[in-house]
């Protein structure tokens, strides 16, 4: 159809972070005047690809061309100058600056004597917001903006660049329906003006509605590229998650025992509402849902690192003091958090120190903690979990993501918990290690541990859980038995758009 060079062409682009290969072979061709969808599971490498296009990361290998010209950006400023506007998945706004300043930072309209023309800036911001149909005060600080509003600001910023290529990494994850419609209108306007747009979303209905072409990625590699009209949502899901599930999920069946964890009417204003469920000994309960649905917040509140407004958490028959992780640990809770590098591990510390982090008090004799006791515990647990590290005093930063994850698991298992909450236990972990982690969880459950597993990877939830709770927009939208839980049913329950018409049918 087009003879001109594509606006963006990536061929075999690769990027690794230490041992993690985030992108193995990224391939993407975006024609001018089209909206191109990029879909794939969590961790498929979409954001990494986007960051390379936006000059945030430098690729390890492969080709990147803009309008047929090879480019190699050394920084975001260069990409911007070359006409690439990117809305990143995690917006980085400056909380102390006003909304308008955030949008125009570094390229403020100048008046006389090269001074910032605030009136023009405000007017420009208003116009942008009018186009997007939102009502935001350009003069309010970015601090305290909701994720949705932050996203709007990012979108406005990107649009105001009037770039030839606009990349949007999950821009709609937090937007309301009205905002989404406005955004789509703006995106179509850009397309019709001949700009190229890349659109990333986990919502396949949005893809169908907005996009012309769709590229599927899996495990850092390109899977397929088709006109949207030629593929069904079912095809896309299959391509995204299609892999040999049998090996990956060595589920050992067990008979659930007593209820160990009971959550009653948990509520945190603006985040989740009326969340009630329980987890039995020997049972793996999966918590499925879209990114941003509030599953992590629920887990954090249960464990006590976040406060909540109402409800209670009962472990082994006794209510926990809210907001007190120490009490939760004493009661037998363990949380393997979502963000390994920030919350799960003290990355600057050694394996031994990390493994013993929670058990220290118990290890100490007369208040003195002997290095030997620490080393013994660490050797014991890292052996059982087959942690691969040079030595026990290897610093956690030097380890692969999978091994880091095992260290976090080891740390919590060493406390002998009754309930193990794992949040995205295999995010960013290679397939082999993934299977090991699954086997471990399965075995532990079989030994009587109660496991609450949050995962954005459907196959993982379906392959591992005895029961699946689906969270949608901060509420438990469905509870499914292992038999009931098929990818289609879970996806429909989880997706705000898809649910209404079809829930009854499921």
């Amino acid at each position: 159809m087009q003879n001109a060079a594509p606006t963006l062409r990536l061929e075999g682009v690769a990027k690794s972070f230490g041992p993690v290969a985030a992108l193995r072979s990224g391939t993407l061709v975006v024609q001018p005047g089209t909206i191109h969808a990029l879909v794939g599971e969590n961790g498929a490498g979409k954001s990494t690809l986007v960051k390379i296009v936006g000059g945030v990361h430098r690729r390890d290998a492969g080709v990147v061309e803009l309008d047929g010209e090879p480019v190699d950006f050394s920084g975001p400023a260069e990409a911007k100058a070359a006409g690439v506007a990117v809305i990143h998945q995690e917006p980085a706004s400056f909380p102390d600056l006003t909304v308008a300043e955030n949008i125009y930072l570094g390229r403020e309209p100048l008046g006389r004597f090269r001074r910032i023309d605030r009136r023009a800036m405000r007017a420009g911001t208003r116009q942008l917001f009018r186009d997007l149909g939102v009502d935001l005060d350009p003069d309010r600080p970015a601090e305290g903006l909701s994720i949705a509003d932050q996203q709007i600001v990012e979108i406005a910023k990107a649009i105001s660049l009037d770039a030839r290529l606009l990349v949007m990494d999950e821009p709609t994850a937090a937007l309301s329906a009205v905002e989404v419609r406005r955004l789509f209108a703006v995106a179509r306007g850009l397309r019709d003006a001949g700009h190229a747009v890349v659109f990333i979303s986990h919502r396949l209905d949005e893809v169908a509605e907005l996009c012309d072409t769709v590229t599927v990625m899996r495990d850092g590699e390109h899977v397929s590229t088709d006109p949207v009209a030629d593929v069904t949502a079912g095809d896309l899901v299959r391509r995204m998650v299609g892999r040999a599930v049998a090996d990956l999920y060595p589920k050992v069946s067990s008979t659930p025992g007593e209820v160990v964890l009971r959550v009653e009417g948990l509520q945190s204003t603006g985040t989740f509402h009326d969340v009630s469920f329980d987890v039995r000994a020997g049972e793996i309960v999966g918590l499925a849902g879209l990114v941003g649905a509030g599953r992590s917040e629920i887990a954090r509140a249960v464990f006590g690192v976040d406060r909540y407004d109402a409800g209670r958490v009962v472990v082994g028959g006794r209510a926990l003091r809210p907001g007190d992780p120490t009490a939760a640990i004493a009661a037998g809770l363990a949380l393997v958090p979502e963000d390994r590098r920030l919350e799960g591990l003290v990355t600057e510390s050694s394996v031994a120190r990390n493994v013993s982090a929670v058990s220290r008090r118990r290890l100490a004799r007369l208040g003195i903690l002997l290095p030997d006791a620490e080393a013994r515990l660490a050797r014991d647990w890292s052996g059982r979990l087959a942690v691969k590290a040079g030595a026990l005093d290897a610093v956690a930063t030097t380890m692969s993501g999978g091994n880091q994850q095992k260290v976090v698991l080891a740390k919590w298992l060493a406390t002998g918990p009754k309930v193990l909450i794992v949040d995205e236990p295999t995010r960013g972990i290679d397939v082999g290690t993934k299977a090991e982690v699954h086997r471990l969880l399965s075995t532990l459950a079989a030994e009587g541990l109660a496991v609450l597993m949050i995962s954005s990877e459907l196959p993982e939830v379906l392959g591992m859980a005895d029961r699946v709770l689906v969270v949608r927009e901060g509420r438990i939208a469905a509870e499914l038995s292992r038999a009931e839980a098929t990818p289609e049913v879970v996806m429909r329950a989880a997706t705000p758009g898809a649910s209404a018409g079809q829930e009854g049918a499921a």
Partner: protein
Amino acid sequence: MSALLRRREAGIALALLVVIGVTTAIQPGFLLSSGGFRDLLLTPAILVVLAVGQAVVVITRNVDLSVGSVLGLTAYLTGRLFIEAPDLPIVVVALVAVAAGAVLGLVNGSIVAFARVPALVITLGTLYVYRGIALTWAGSDRIDAGDMPRSFLALGTQQVLGIPVLTIVAAVVLAVVAYYMYTARGGRQLYAIGSDPDAAELQGLPVRRRLLGAFALGGALAGLAGVMFAARYGTVSSGAGLGIELQVVGAVVVGGVAIFGGSGTVAGAALGAMLLLTINRALPVVGIPDFWQRAVVGALIIGAIALDRVLARRRSHRLAAERDTDQPGEGGPADREEANR
């Protein structure tokens, strides 16, 4: 936000007015005598200039503890220049001292920006080094009033239309820097860097260049403060400005500049400096022995930081509450259905 900040500065200004008002009521000469009025304006001039420079550095999430030593060095340099080269015009001498200050600031800035090491440690180190250089150079020598030209010393006390020259200098510095911080792209970028240094890199801002600029400006203003010191006090020994750094940081903090960068204004810092020194002068007048002054100043600093935090908490609570009313729990899905039809 500017409305809130304006309120913050208005608060300090109000406190300043209250202090002046109460003191004047007890001792009318504090404000109403010509000397009282002059000192009210003149005394804070040097600290204001230092606070303006420090505020710019603190806004970028750094700090410069070496300003007292830079002041000492440049004040002595000023005197020395008058002795060594009596024919040099005053303006040239002042410019040389300011340039020297800028260079010293640039040294700090380069180490911080290029080696990516914490400014607190580096400027603590250069605090010792610069002071050591001043001591080595000056020894027991002291610049006396007689060593400097009358016309220069006159600047220290002279008034134009009833306003002391040094106060005018401080006001001009404040106006220029405030204008830059508010209206220039570079100024806003300094705020952005302090607000979130990583995001600033991600946005492709010239972080290094801006940091160098901020430290150089801080140094240059400390140099200017050195010149003002020489003019005002008429004597300079190697100890000039000893220990003033904590007072400067205190003034900046009282003035509402967050120590972790990104917020606050130079005008606030200047008001903070005026408030601290005016309180200092007011206490003996209202009958509190001057021994207690530091305690009052310390309580004031702590109170100011705590107040800032309370205001910030209240603000973010309010913003969060707004968010909740914007997005009622049921609204989202309903809207979405509608959109998808």
